[in-house]
């Protein structure tokens, strides 16, 4: 494997890992505050992508009659409007689910695992509602920005790839700042530290929980649009596998930790891309791409066996 090919795979892995990391962030934030594995999150990603698809198609239809290529500023404007609109609407969906399904259960004192099952059901509901209303055919996500291919020293990359990676990194930095430097972030960290005492100190639990769902869902929407822009294919079940895998990534990083979600997501992306890439090296031809899941999950299993609370997770001391 020459350096150029290695860098090429590295870029692909960064892009692929960005999706995992963005989705894993949503899992990890909700988990940190509520100790709830929000299994509907993968489908929120799907909902975000579809909302983005409809907004983008609508805007493209309004602005152009399809014949002339749009000016550069217009396509950027559409991209930004699509992202913002989808983030807002998807956040609404996320908070709505929390209000309708999770909060009543929580207030009735149902066990944690019943909430998890409810989340699974909500995810299934979103998938099949999509399938039943929009049909089984895949949707093609419109090309919002004309794809350009650059080649530097044998490594070729597209502008979309750069935007995906750049946005993912930017979002993570902003999120880390929100959680570390703002009042609402402090409240989130406080709640994940002690769920009994913190509400007594006047921290409004429900507001913080809603805020968490807003952030998590809008990140999933962002990931959905990026995914659509990069691969151009949307289907009703696109969120299932990527959602489960992102959850695994979040846990391997140490669930409840923002840095953990990033590291876990990129790690999973790297492993998956490089398992496939290794198959091209002489001597490793047996390693076909069908081994991707097998190798990736075995590595993650080994990591969890060695470090049971994930890479960044800190074992909470138990009082006896």
């Amino acid at each position, binding site marked *: 494997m020459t350096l150029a090919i290695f860098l090429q795979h590295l870029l692909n892995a960064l892009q692929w890992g960005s999706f995992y990391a963005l989705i894993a962030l949503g899992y990890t934030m909700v988990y940190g505050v509520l100790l709830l594995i929000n299994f509907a999150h993968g489908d929120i990603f799907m909902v975000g992508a579809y909302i983005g698809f409809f907004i983008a198609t609508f805007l493209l239809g309004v602005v152009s009659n399809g014949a002339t290529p749009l000016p550069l500023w217009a396509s950027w404007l559409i991209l930004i409007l699509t992202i913002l609109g989808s983030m807002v609407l998807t956040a609404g969906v996320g908070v709505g689910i929390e209000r309708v399904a999770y909060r009543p259960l929580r207030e009735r004192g149902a066990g944690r695992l019943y909430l998890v099952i409810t989340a699974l059901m909500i995810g299934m509901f979103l998938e099949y509602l999509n399938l039943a209303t929009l049909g089984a055919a895949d949707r093609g996500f419109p090309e919002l920005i004309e794809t350009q291919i650059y080649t530097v020293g044998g490594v070729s990359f597209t502008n979309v790839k750069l935007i995906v990676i750049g946005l993912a990194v930017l979002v993570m930095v902003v999120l880390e700042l929100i959680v570390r430097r703002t009042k609402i972030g402090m409240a989130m960290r406080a709640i994940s530290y002690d769920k009994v005492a913190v509400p007594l100190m006047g921290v409004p639990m429900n507001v913080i929980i809603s805020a968490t769902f807003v952030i998590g869902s809008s990140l999933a929407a962002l990931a959905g649009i990026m995914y659509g822009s990069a691969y151009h294919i949307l289907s009703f079940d696109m969120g299932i596998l990527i959602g489960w895998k992102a959850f695994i990534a979040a846990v391997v990083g140490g669930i409840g930790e923002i840095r953990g979600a990033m590291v876990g997501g990129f790690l999973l992306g790297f492993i998956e891309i490089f398992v496939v890439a290794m198959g091209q090296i002489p001597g490793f031809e047996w390693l076909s791409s069908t081994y991707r*899941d*097998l190798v990736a999950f075995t590595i993650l299993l080994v990591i969890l066996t060695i470090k049971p609370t994930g890479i960044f997770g800190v074992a909470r001391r138990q009082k006896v």
Partner: protein
Amino acid sequence: MRKLYLPLIVLLLFVVIIGGSWLRIFNEYWQLVLLFMGINIILTVSLNLINGYMGEFSCGHAGFMAVGAYVTGILTVWLFAEDKVFGLPVLPAAWAIPLFPVALIIGAVAASLVGLLIAIPSFRTRGDYLAIVTLAVNYIVKSAIENMEVIGGPRGFVGMKRVMNNMADVLDVPWLLIWTFIGMIVTILIIRNFMSSTFGKGVEAIREDEIAAELMSVNTRRVKVVVFMLSCGLAGLAGGLFAHWPGGYVNPGTFTILKSTEVMVMVYLGGMGSISGSIISAIGFTLLLEVLRPLGVFKWVVIPLLLVVMMLLRPTGILGNRELTDVFPRLRAIFGSEEESYALASD
């Protein structure tokens, strides 16, 4: 006299189900529904041991089912049927009848050995981290099967139909339903007796407080290994039965997270730590799937909604952690253990 009620009811059920199927009173569709009911009961009751009684969160039950299905299926096809891969049958077809349960047991043992994969990490890991381990094991099993070209890879494994046909040629009774019924009864008895043994009390102690259990001389490691191996083994048994369903094939796509989710839903719907709840919800859920079949795609929109509403109305599942005999004490005369029914008689 009281002791005889339960065996009599089981015998009656057996006669009705098997006799009805044998005489074609139940058509093939209903036989299939009955088969899936039995398999679902085995899966649900066995997962309840981990998720309900021990309070862990295993979401990879379908993986163990897959191991059981493939091991049992390959064994029976290799031994009793002509196959492209394995060639002529090793043993005459008549032997299939006595040896079929042996193949089922070997499949269950194989599944319980794979269960060690989650039992060993569970010494140090708990809760959501263990959930991931089970999830990963499910993916690993599925992925491993997909990569074995000998047994069909992603296309699946066929040939079990010939085994069942061979058995039917020798003696025409609904063999699969018989073994499913027996497997179901054995599973329920094993879990029930296991949970009322001192070992079972140790399992419940781990759920309440692992450290306290350890202090009270519960050998937590041993309990965990036994629980995981038992539960996974029974899932393998369900898989072995499933492999011989009239469709005649198994493929890795059947044993995904979705299948695991289905089993989990049945466990939590019935109530954590309630065998009768598991049985009721497994029967109910299987029936619900069939009743809503006319809705087509909308079936899977309606079912999750129904379940969410049900969760909101009864946040602990149908029976919570109680048994049917706790809700209707009179049933204790039939289903309760001996001491319980004596206690009732002396009231």
